């Protein structure tokens, strides 16, 4: 063993010209150092944009478009980002689609395990929100986050519940919740409507939600006109797919714009 090289390299090669144990073979001519530590991706690849949710008189409603963007490319135009967890909880995620699909499978298995073992209380929205917070916070503490902004909607103790969980573990409950651009554009709209009207009925909530998604389609570069709406009431969960808001958009402002000065 060459003492002089003990501190300079990881381990002396077992055979000449080959890699150290656990290392990769370095091809002659390349000068990029092979990393031995695992590097976790810290950026989303295929991502979903805003989610909007609001509590109304008698339930919770969630809306999200069905676009999976690949950077600035509108790559997958029918990604269903909303999924029914149980009769009492619905989860919609924005952020990395791969991380959403992963967490969805974990949650689905969790629900199956509960059913199999005869654990009767069905997973409610509050419990799901709490569990998701812990998972996401722990992942971020290990510098390996699930790049998600989740909106959990449903019922907790017979009361409508709406919560938000972030990739860094920020979690809160509110009467109106949105992720991404929705936070800046949809939340002011919902707050204004609530101030004007007080109690929102299901029809009010539906109209407001679609208006929010429409304004987001106007002003968010990564939004799309195809969307889903999830409605959770005491009776259960109803998810509507393949909705289209393009016919309701108005582009007549184009008549008033000529050049830039």
């Amino acid at each position, binding site marked *: 063993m060459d003492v002089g090289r003990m501190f300079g390299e990881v381990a002396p090669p077992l055979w000449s010209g080959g890699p150290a144990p656990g290392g990769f073979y370095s091809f002659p001519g390349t000068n990029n150092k092979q990393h031995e530590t695992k590097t976790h991706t810290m950026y989303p690849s295929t991502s979903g944009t805003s989610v909007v949710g609001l509590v109304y008189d008698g339930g919770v409603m969630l809306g999200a478009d069905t676009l999976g963007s690949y950077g600035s490319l509108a790559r997958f135009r029918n990604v269903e980002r909303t999924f029914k967890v149980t009769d009492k909880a619905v989860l919609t995620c924005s952020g990395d689609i791969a991380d959403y699909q992963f967490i969805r499978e974990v949650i689905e298995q969790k629900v199956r395990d509960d059913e199999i073992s005869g654990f009767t209380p069905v997973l409610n929205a509050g419990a799901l929100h709490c569990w998701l917070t812990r998972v996401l916070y722990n992942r971020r503490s290990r510098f390996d986050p699930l790049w998600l902004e989740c909106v959990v909607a449903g019922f907790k103790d017979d009361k409508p519940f709406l919560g938000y969980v972030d990739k860094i573990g920020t979690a809160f409950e509110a009467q109106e919740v949105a992720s991404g*651009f929705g936070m*800046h*554009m*949809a*939340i*002011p*709209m919902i*707050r*204004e409507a609530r101030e004007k009207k007080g109690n929102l009925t299901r029809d009010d909530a539906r109209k407001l939600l679609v*208006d929010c998604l*429409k*304004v987001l389609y*106007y*002003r968010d570069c990564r939004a799309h006109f195809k969307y889903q709406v999830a409605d959770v009431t005491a009776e259960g969960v109803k998810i509507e797919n393949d909705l289209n808001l393009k016919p309701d958009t108005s582009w007549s*402002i184009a008549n*008033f*714009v*000529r*050049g*830039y*000065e």
Partner: protein
Amino acid sequence: MEDSGDIHTGFQFTNFARNEKMVSRGFPMPVCRKTGTTIAGVVFKDGVVLGADTRATEGDIVADKNCSKIHYLQPNMYCCGAGTAADLEMTTQLMAGQLELHRLNTGRQVPVIAANSMFKQMLFRYQGHIGAALVLGGVDKYGSHIYSIHPHGSTDRLPYTTMGSGSLAAMTVFEERWHPDMELDEAKQLVRDAIAGGVFNDLGSGSNIDLCIITKDGANMLRPYDVANVKGQRVGKYEYKRGVTEVLTKKVRPIEIVSETVRPIPGEDMDTA
């Protein structure tokens, strides 16, 4: 005219390297006063309505609770400003002067597009270092116009526009409710609601809402149009009433003047430090 080689116009960047070094050694750079803002403008049937909030921030502190963000340019045009407060004040005052000279030179009302061109040419020349984002609005013989001008010098002519940190909240109101040929009251309510969206949902905007209505008959500045945030009344008085503290003893000792001397001090220059 003698050209002194030492005079430089425009921004100087010679201290850039020194400043970077100072920051890396922990020197806290002073924050500039910004008008993290919500400003908006719409075109309605008879003219334009401009609106603005009244909060000026210095980092996370509210520097001015009631500053005026709608600046006078000409009797037929006003300009709302978002960005660095000093840049806005100086730029709009400079432009107001230039526009007045233009009016005197040509002998006629200045068209709004002239102000737009002057702003964009100046801001482009400074390549974005002047942090002024403006909503320019006015009425001239060619009609009613709203322009949005960005710090790098790009402009847009639109029927409705918003700028500033609260612009997204304000824009949602416009996207929902703007339509062509609105009446004055509807337009005022629309702009008020848009600015209120910014005031209540954006932390960089706050306090009151100012409006300015410009028609072919002139401009009407409504400041404040809506005092949206009223300071609360203090509920309790926390001072102790007289007589609560018991006086046990009282001793009065007059100051005795033992001696008096007068020493004249020679005149000093005023300390202007």
